[in-house]
């Protein structure tokens, strides 16, 4: 019944999906935190840039960003991100595009977390003479992160689903392989079931696990 799987590296394709997810998750967590710090910083230019970035990026289709990394960054500006072969270049470009897009959502989730830290915490920190970076890095962000595990889990699951867009620039991940298999094999329903099951396996346990973590991590007030 599952003969059609022969000759196709389904597990390899899903492994690419997982790798896209993990690298993009790490990158967008870092860049998203930096953006959130900019949006609450005392420097008006940085605040303005952070707001502008989030508003622009959240309103562009991810497909446009991903295709732009290939058409604009690689083919026009010659950015190859230190890679030699097309497969590796496209993979890295896709990760870059996913980071650029996802970090806007990470930034907004973190900002809502910053708002949950009680005013007294910040006032106490400032009364001790801590500067902005110290207040943010030692007092506010550690508490904010603990309260936004849930929202960040939503972003991570959305990111997992969004990695399929990398198929638009030929990254050999699950959706691209699914399209290839649909074209070549007859068992449309079975093929679709296999790929749907793959994404269920990736997204549902992540949601359950991080839901549990978010309840454990949340600061009880």
């Amino acid at each position: 019944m599952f003969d059609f799987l022969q000759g196709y590296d389904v597990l390899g394709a899903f492994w690419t999906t997982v790798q896209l997810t993990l690298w993009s998750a790490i990158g967008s967590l870092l860049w998203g935190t930096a953006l959130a710090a900019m949006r609450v910083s005392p420097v008006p230019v940085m605040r303005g840039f952070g707001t502008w970035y989030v508003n622009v990026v959240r309103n562009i289709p991810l497909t446009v960003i991903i295709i732009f990394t290939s058409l604009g960054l690689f083919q026009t500006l010659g950015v190859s991100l230190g890679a030699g072969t097309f497969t590796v270049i496209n993979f890295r470009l896709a990760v870059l595009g996913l980071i650029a897009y996802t970090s806007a959502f990470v930034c907004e989730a973190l900002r809502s977390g910053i708002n949950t830290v009680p005013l007294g915490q910040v006032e106490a920190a400032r009364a001790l003479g801590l500067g902005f970076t110290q207040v943010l890095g030692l007092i506010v962000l550690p508490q904010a992160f603990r309260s936004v595990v849930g929202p960040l889990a939503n972003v991570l699951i959305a990111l997992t689903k969004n990695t399929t867009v990398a198929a638009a620039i030929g990254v050999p991940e699950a959706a691209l392989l699914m399209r290839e298999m649909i074209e070549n094999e007859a068992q449309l329903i079975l093929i679709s079931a296999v790929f749907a099951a793959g994404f269920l396996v990736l997204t549902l346990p992540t949601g359950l696990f991080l839901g549990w973590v978010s309840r454990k991590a949340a600061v009880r007030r």
Partner: protein
Amino acid sequence: MSSVLYDTPGPRARRRSILYTAGFLLVLAAAAWWVVTGLAEKGQLEWSRWAPFFTDSRVWTTFLLPGLENTLIAAALALVIALPLGAVLGIARMSDHWWVRGAAGTVVEFFRAIPVLILMLFANAAYAAFFDVSPERRPLYAVVTGLVLYNASVLAEVVRAGILALPRGQSDAARAIGMRKGQTMRYVLLPQSVTAMLPAIVSQMVVIVKDTALGGAMLGFSELLASVRPISANYGANTIASFTVVAVIFIVLNFVLTSFAARLEGRLRRGRRSTGAVVAADAVEELATPGEHVGHKPEPPARS
């Protein structure tokens, strides 16, 4: 909040702020310089490549506007079909019968957990294999079907959240005057929750518009993003120019929708005549995530 994170700047803080501003602007300028010189080197900044968008109306009438029209048609169709489906699923998820609740829940969780592109690819192949849809219409059908399957399940959660957001007194009062379950839903809960859901629905519209671009890239649906290729073929390889124009149209369209959702939400929260129940515009991110109660956005503590 931003103002409580730091003290009012004194002379030293002000000097440092100016230093940071200058450094940051320098970085931005360097990045801009790199992009501009890179584009100029490839001749992408030549006026002849950008001029058509300002001087030749045929770019708009032949490519961009029909593309935008297809984007909007697909998005509108998807929303119009997904809304009633979502309402049915959402209400079924709150049913008193476990099998109705369970079936609706399974459908909703399944389609929320799967990327919309997978659904579109499946729909595209299914229309080709099992239905008599002409090849020209198939991409539109596939895009709308994929969007409907996904968004019906997200909107089901929006509907459920909207009904649950209403004060309990509403259904208690309906029961007290002898209404049945169906009557309570039809005459009391649904009409009020529609108002509460509006910001989230408009916000979901942004997600739908963005997802239509997938059809252009992967299924050959001739929407706005797909118009880049014929434009650059007809107007001297102006890929960057046409890409920029398309991106700006998307940003403006979605920014208008996002702002509209925020204004609606603000109005509902301030409103005195309604119950004050509202499904926030940014709640759709959470409602699009599979799994029960995964990430409730933390409530900020009350500030004095």
